[in-house]
């Protein structure tokens, strides 16, 4: 009986403190695993900016959010995700997220001991000299430019298990970066999870196939 009372008191304290401080992670609603439509089934729209010289497509139904300038975008497959009080520190299961950045090459300065810092850090080097130290990956071509694809399973960041693909496109004067990631759905059978992964692969492929680089302005 005493133990039960202590337990009740503890729960009450936790509840009060969580009300006070905005809730603890366990009290946040969870995003339910969803069935993603395939790339063919989705309606797509074009995201483009002439100054930064890029154009690519994303599913029209996704949440789309530009940074303060068009060099930054974020996309979520669930358009309601930003209205749910999810814990801010990880992708919920069954969600695809895309981070996009377009930067002049100087924003990607090399790692230590790779290049001559006396040249690189003043922005007077050529783009070839400024190539960053890139992680191991697979080289391909996106819109006629060399692109590095790095696939990863995240177990060291914020989140228990996320599969992500980084795409680094090295254009003449700009570097375009895409991080396309998803947390596999839980609570579904293996077939549904496999379908989700297939839809993710198709969506990633369609985005990269739609990517067009034009001459950026301001260079």
């Amino acid at each position, binding site marked *: 009986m005493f133990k039960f009372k202590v337990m009740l008191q503890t729960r*009450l*304290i936790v*509840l*009060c*403190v969580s*009300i*006070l*401080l*905005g*809730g*603890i*992670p366990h009290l946040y609603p969870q995003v339910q695993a969803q069935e993603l439509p395939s790339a063919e089934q989705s309606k797509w729209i074009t995201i483009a900016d002439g*100054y*930064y010289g890029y154009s690519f497509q994303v599913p029209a139904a996704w949440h789309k959010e530009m*940074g*303060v*300038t068009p*060099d*930054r975008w*974020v996309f979520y497959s669930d358009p309601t*995700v*930003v209205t749910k009080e*999810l*814990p*801010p*520190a*990880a*992708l*919920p299961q069954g969600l695809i997220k895309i*981070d996009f*950045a377009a*930067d*002049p*090459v*100087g*924003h*990607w*300065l*090399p790692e230590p001991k790779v290049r001559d*810092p006396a040249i*690189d*850090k*003043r*922005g*007077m080097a050529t783009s070839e000299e400024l190539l960053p130290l890139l992680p191991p990956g697979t080289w391909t071509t996106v819109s006629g430019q060399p692109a590095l694809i*790095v696939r990863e399973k*995240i177990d*060291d*960041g*914020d*989140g*228990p298990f996320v599969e*992500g693909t*980084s795409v680094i496109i090295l254009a003449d004067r700009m570097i375009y*970066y895409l*991080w396309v*990631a998803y947390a596999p759905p839980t609570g579904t059978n293996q077939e549904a999870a496999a379908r989700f992964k297939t839809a993710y692969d198709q969506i990633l492929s369609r985005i990269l196939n739609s990517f067009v680089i034009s001459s950026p*302005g*301001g*260079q």
Partner: protein
Amino acid sequence: MKIVKCLLILGVGFVLLATATHTVIAVGMVTELPFIGSYNVSCGYHTSCYGTPTPGYGLDFVNRNESTYGDVTYASGRGTVTASGPEGGWGYRVIIRHPDNYYSRYAHLLYWFPAANHKMREGSPIGYMDSTGNSTGHHLHFQVYYNTTSGGGVDPTPIDGYTQFCGAGQTCGPYNNYSFNTEMRLVDNTDGGFSLTGTAPCWSNTTNGFHRDGLGKSVTYYQYCNGTTGNPTRIGTWVPSLPISGNYHVYVFAPNHSGITLTGNARYQIYSNNTLIATISVNQNGYNNDWVWLGMWNLSTSGTYVRLTNQTSDGQMVAYDAIMFVRDF
């Protein structure tokens, strides 16, 4: 009865909140909170914070008074940047190695300012906060390590009356910081130490660039003026109040210039004892909210300033943003 108890607990909580005024943390040379203002920890000690938090010493900070998006994050101790840019689930992040082999990580940023090898001191601005990488909400993930940058890290214990931040996955705060104990000096274009004289037309960029208030505010992030290949018709001057004479790393902030073509040849003139000691050219188009290193120079507490005219070889616009002086260590 339960409601009364709840109100009582809330009342005690408010009293505790009102009296909590942390300004420093203690982990080797990681001594300062990585922000200015009043923040809560939205997820206490963790490596992962979804569902049941994975043990570790990462802390998620969120602004208590407004959106965290675009807030400035600052170096929490002096050290050398070992990595900056994207890293998978960490989003855009900066990692600083401190002289005592502690490391600090600042993750999920919108922009990262310094490059690898740059030396920063306490309070050097190193990025704008966001939610990039494995995250859906705006926050700063701050983590301290020893001798490595993997694993759960080490405990960044707050001092000033508290033995530790809140428990794994829990929320707590506020944690306040309004200044840094530092031998870094920053002069922004909106500070009293900056002047812009002359007659060439100039404009203010109120969208992007550097400002201590962060992005998304109605402030002047930088000014930009018509350039000329003839005699200068505008002169910008940054005058720092250096704490001591000595060697300083001088950095100029090359701002985001969305929609504006800037000069590829901005000539920064560095003076000490009112004597010109160096002229460094910077391609202002080549960056996007970056600290650009102008070298390390021996600077005096008197007669030190940096000058930038609108005279360029290409006649394009010249941007005037912040300049940072970091005493060498």
